[in-house]
């Protein structure tokens, strides 16, 4: 049986288990004076039975699917007398057998391989049957077991809720798993990088030029891996972006929440939210071809030196992009400020703006900070606009009219460009990722504490 049909069948079984569990609970209860005599609602007995029926079977099915290929493979390969020694050779042979078995057009093949292909097909078939049988027996067996255990004393609800809670906990841990995964996937490469380049140089070096870094045929000129210009660049671009997005986003949110009529709100809010969805390539083109030359010309007319790619251009456009992050989230928290606060302020004769500035915003501040933080995160993570409009030159400068580059841009260019396997040039991307990860982590810790303190003060 196909796995998909099996899956469908299993779902059906789960439904059946639910139904029988449900009705069995009711019938048990009937003899004892109605469902009040049950420890839990019949639904919970149903769900309980369904969980017994489905959960182990699904877990087993998943494990099966993960491992069955490996097992079949070792069986098939074990049957071949003169199989190649190297792993890659085996990979290849097996791929050939697979292709033959699934009837793809491949070149010439030996009878031995053909035999192996047949063996593969038959193993697969029996595997499928075994799988089907196992899953179905498991599901029905455990389902029946759970069904038999149904008694008025059984606290089905508590059991079901326990399982649910574990599932919830598991979901909450997804973030942790992701973090661990990210750390694992950058840590080793970073360590290798730091074997080449000392941490101190990386952290405090003022010069970034992965340019000629240790090309295999060019040992002499080592690149410079001082990450400071990247971090200052990131800071500058993000700061400019926030400089645009925070006032505009916040004011929009305030206007929408406090002043605008429902119709304006219903129209403007989704419209502005679209800004968050426009692909960054579009912003990139806009920043590079419209904003950047405009800024350069403007700067030149007032007698300033400006390069054709500038942090300002990238930051401005990025700011536009993240306006909705600030405005949407702030709008929600501003709306959540109780009306009694506003009444209190208005009753004292504040104007609306005073009410907003002095009472509503302070009350909504923790939420707003959350939104801004999300926006900052987005700004730090953005690459396309910076690549296109701010360039890739790692200048250590405080002048927004010069071109700068950011950490993420460097990560992307290092990873997708012409890489070397082991040179620090490629490894640097991982180290940068790690640094970025750690610094945003610190930033978030600080933010959490600030917000907490603030809350303690005013709750």
């Amino acid at each position, binding site marked *: 049986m196909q796995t998909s049909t099996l899956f469908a069948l299993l779902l059906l079984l789960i439904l059946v288990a639910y139904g029988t569990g449900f009705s069995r609970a009711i019938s048990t209860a009937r003899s004892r004076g109605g469902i009040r005599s049950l420890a839990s609602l019949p639904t919970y007995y149903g769900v309980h039975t369904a969980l017994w029926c489905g959960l182990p079977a699904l877990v087993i099915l998943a494990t099966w699917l993960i491992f069955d290929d490996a097992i079949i493979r070792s069986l098939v390969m074990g049957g071949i007398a003169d199989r190649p020694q190297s792993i890659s050779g085996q990979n290849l042979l097996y791929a050939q057998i697979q292709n033959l078995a699934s009837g793809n057009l491949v070149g010439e093949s030996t009878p031995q391989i053909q035999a192996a292909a047949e063996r593969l097909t038959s193993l697969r078939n029996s595997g499928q049957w075994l799988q089907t049988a196992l899953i179905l027996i498991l599901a029905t067996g455990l389902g029946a077991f759970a069904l038999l255990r149904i008694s008025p004393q059984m606290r089905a609800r508590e059991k079901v809720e326990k399982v649910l809670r574990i599932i919830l906990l598991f979901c909450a841990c997804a973030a942790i798993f992701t973090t661990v995964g990210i750390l694992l996937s950058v840590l080793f490469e970073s360590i290798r990088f730091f074997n080449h380049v000392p941490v101190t140089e990386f952290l405090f070096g003022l010069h970034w030029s992965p340019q000629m870094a240790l090309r295999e045929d060019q040992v002499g000129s080592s690149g410079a891996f001082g990450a400071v210009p990247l971090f200052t660049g990131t800071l500058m671009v993000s700061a400019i972006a926030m400089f645009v997005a925070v006032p505009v986003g916040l004011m929009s949110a305030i206007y929408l929440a406090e002043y605008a009529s429902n119709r304006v709100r219903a129209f403007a809010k989704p419209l502005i939210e679209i800004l968050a969805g426009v692909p960054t390539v579009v912003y990139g083109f806009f920043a590079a071809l419209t904003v950047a030359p405009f800024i350069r010309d403007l700067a030149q007319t007032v007698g300033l030196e400006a390069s054709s790619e500038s942090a300002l251009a990238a930051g401005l456009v990025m700011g536009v992009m993240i306006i909705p992050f600030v405005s949407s989230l702030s709008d929600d928290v501003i709306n959540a400020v109780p009306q009694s606060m506003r009444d209190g*302020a208005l009753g004292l004769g504040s104007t609306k703006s005073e009410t907003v500035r002095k009472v509503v915003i302070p009350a909504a501040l923790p939420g707003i900070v959350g939104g801004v933080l999300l926006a900052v995160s987005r700004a730090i993570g953005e690459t396309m606009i910076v690549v296109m409009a701010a360039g890739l030159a790692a200048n250590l400068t405080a002048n927004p009219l010069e071109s700068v580059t950011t950490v993420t841009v460097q990560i992307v260019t290092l990873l997708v460009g012409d890489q070397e396997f082991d040179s620090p040039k490629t490894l640097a991307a991982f180290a940068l990722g790690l640094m970025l990860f750690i610094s945003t982590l610190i930033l978030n810790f600080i933010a959490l504490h600030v917000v907490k303190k603030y809350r303690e003060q005013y709750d």
Partner: protein
Amino acid sequence: MRNVNVFYGETQAIHDVSLDIGRNQVVAMIGPSGCGKSTFLRCLNRMNDTIDTCRVEGELSLDGEAIYGPKVDVVPLRARVGMVFQKPNPFPKTIYENVAYGPKIHGIASRRAELDEIVENSLRRAGLWNEVKDRLDKPGTGLSGGQQQRLCIARAIAVSPEVILMDEPCSALDPIATARIEELIDELSENYTIAIVTHSMQQAARVSQRTAYFHLGKLVEVNDTETVFTNPQHELTEAYITGRFG
């Protein structure tokens, strides 16, 4: 106020109410729930403006100036007519800032010392000074309910209003706190005109000079408090105050 009508969208909440409030008097408004007491009170400092659907007709005036006049600025109006709400709603700021808020926004105090003085005076008059003088920089939300309500009163009098509107200021408080507030109202009535909405007839009897009885959006009776309670003119009033009503 003359012939005041208030509408929420289509439904009329106040029908043709006319009521005069004398200077430095305490007027109590009583009546069953939903009869429009709050609505009427909120007309007096145009707090109803904040409700989109609300529409007010009729003539309301304060010292001869029309409240709903076309040129009237609600900001100084509300400074002259302060308001205390049913649920204490201190700002999530420090006690000091809560009281200083009004003077600050209105620019009443020009110097810090002046502001300190106003804050202290207001808190004193609200009978809260001794309890909070050591923790002016603690959040106002950390006070007990009764204290919070007195803080709100202090906040209201900090801008030296002429009239103070109180919408069931004691309904969230215990009797002891209530007693304090009632005392306070008594003291304040020397200098301020006070309009108070209350559920408790005893309270109305205790604190007010005049009492107005509302019923279903209509002003049924208004008279000296004593008269209303001892000799109600209208049978509805009588039914209500004797508790027979409902």
